[in-house]
């Protein structure tokens, strides 16, 4: 019996010695493993699949970069890419509009808390629901078309118009995004340094110059976050396109996110390799923003340490 107590004593002292070093790994283990399996490994796997010709069932053939070469000649790829750029540009409007709304609402009158929450509503609701509502508004038998007809402008269905359908979807997509930016700025406005503002006002700064020189610099963290979430939101335009047009009419509203899905997993064929090549392009675009974001966080971490 003494030997067994000795072993357990030894065990516990070994544990005591190494506790500090091992504990973080024990705590990290389940989360990290799951994350590596479901998020990190698939990224590399997708990059590999993009070099294959594969329908998901029969054996895959290694084809090198030919999927990427095919992309260069694919008209729909360019349409999607250009639409992504349109999304990116117009989505950015959510940031100043959100700021404007936040300034408009940053008062203390009776019931303002409820009003702010109601303004935030569109962000809480599923994009599927927002998409359904706007598709109905745009429908020739829905809301806007009949309205135009009554005032004598003639019916118009934006989602059926090859040239403008994308703008119709972006408009719907930006609606919840404005709410998100607004809430970020409301938080920023809430935490402004009052002394600086008062000092500025003493010096005679007011209106736009006060806003530009004193308020806006203090809102920088909110602006940074608003831009990051808006860029990411604009590249994740899948839901809206899937609900409102499914890429049509004639592929004119496709974006990379939806085009990839369509190529890899729909009646248009199961082209896993080609789909992965599209995903890789989207991933590369996003990677710039991710690296930029991480660089900023790294800088602030270094300051903190």
């Amino acid at each position, binding site marked *: 019996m003494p030997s067994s107590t000795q072993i357990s004593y030894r065990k516990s002292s070994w544990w005591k010695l190494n506790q500090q070093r091992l504990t973080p790994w024990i705590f990290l283990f389940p989360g990290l493993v799951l994350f590596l399996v479901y998020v*990190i490994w698939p990224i590399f796997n997708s990059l590999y699949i993009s070099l294959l010709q594969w329908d998901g069932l029969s054996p895959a053939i290694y084809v090198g970069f030919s999927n990427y070469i095919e992309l260069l000649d694919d008209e729909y790829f360019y349409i999607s890419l250009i639409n992504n750029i349109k999304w990116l540009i117009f989505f950015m409007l959510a940031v100043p509009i959100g700021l404007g709304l936040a300034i408009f609402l940053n008062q203390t009158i009776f019931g303002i808390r409820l009003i702010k929450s109601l303004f935030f509503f569109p962000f809480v*609701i599923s994009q*599927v629901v927002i998409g359904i509502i706007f598709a109905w508004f745009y429908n020739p038998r829905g809301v806007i078309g009949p309205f135009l007809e009554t005032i004598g402008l003639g019916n118009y269905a934006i989602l059926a118009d090859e040239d403008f359908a994308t703008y119709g979807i972006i408009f719907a997509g930006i609606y919840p995004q404005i709410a998100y930016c607004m809430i970020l700025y409301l938080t920023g406005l809430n935490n402004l340094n009052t002394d600086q503002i008062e000092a500025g006002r003493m010096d005679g700064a007011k209106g736009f110059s006060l806003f530009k020189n004193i308020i806006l610099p203090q809102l920088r*963290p*909110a602006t940074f976050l608003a831009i990051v979430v808006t860029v990411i939101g604009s590249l994740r335009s899948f839901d809206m396109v899937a609900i409102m047009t499914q890429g049509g009419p004639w592929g004119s509203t496709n974006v990379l996110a939806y085009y990839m899905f369509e190529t890899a997993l729909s009646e248009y064929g199961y082209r896993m390799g080609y789909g992965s090549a599209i995903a890789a392009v989207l991933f590369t675009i996003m990677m710039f923003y991710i690296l930029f974001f991480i660089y900023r966080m790294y800088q602030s971490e270094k300051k903190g340490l």
Partner: protein
Amino acid sequence: MFPIPIQKRPLINQISYRVLIPISLLIWLIPLIGIMLTSIRGLGDIAQGNLWGVPSEFLLFSNLKDVFQNTPMLSYIMNSFKITIPTMIGAVALSCMTGFALASYRFKANLFIFFTFIAGNFVPFQILMIPVRDLTYQMGLYDTVTGLVLFHVAFQTGFCTLFMRNFIKALPNELFEAARIDGTSEFNIFLKIVLPLTRPAIAALSVLIFTFIWNDFFWATVLIQGHHAMPITAGLKSLNGQWISAYHLLSAGSIMAAIPPVIMFFLMQKHFIAGLTLGASKG
């Protein structure tokens, strides 16, 4: 205060501000008001183009009855809960642990692992789609709630870790040191000191994850095929195809999809906003 409090402005500004607020709110919510009004109408009103006027009949309950009787709506809603709640618990539990590990211990790979979680959290879903679908298939979990939950937990752990780690990092370190000197084991530091203090963060993450997952459409489309496991977002999409111009039913269904996250938001508003705006007020 910026802008100048309206109370310090001339009376005329104060009055016009108070008038402008409800008007702008009304305009802002037109899409949502439209869908609410439509959900109480009958087909007659819609066919006649009476969309904004007084409904000629109040049919909300009959529309809802119609939706629940003739579609798998109830099963969609149940599936959404079956997917959302386990994901919420799983991701929050895992990230309490990862967040604690990354916030309170210094080791070489620390920052690298932290940034891996952040980077993974931002990648476009499409780059994960084919391998994740394949993996789920091979585990025999394709078209099941479990398969979808497993992926959601893994993916959300990235965002939750970022959040938890920063939250725990901001706690006073002396607390842990004092406990260590008293001989408290690392596990007890986590259980007895860290966990109780992270309660606000746990609340914030829970509501955020609830909303994100409830509203997820992409992964439900990729990993689920049949109605037996389909959540309400994917279900609505399939009903959208069937009810070409039955907008009163579509509206009633949409409202069912919108209610749970809206209730969650109202109950936990403070935490929800604190979670979303993390970092909006400091460098």
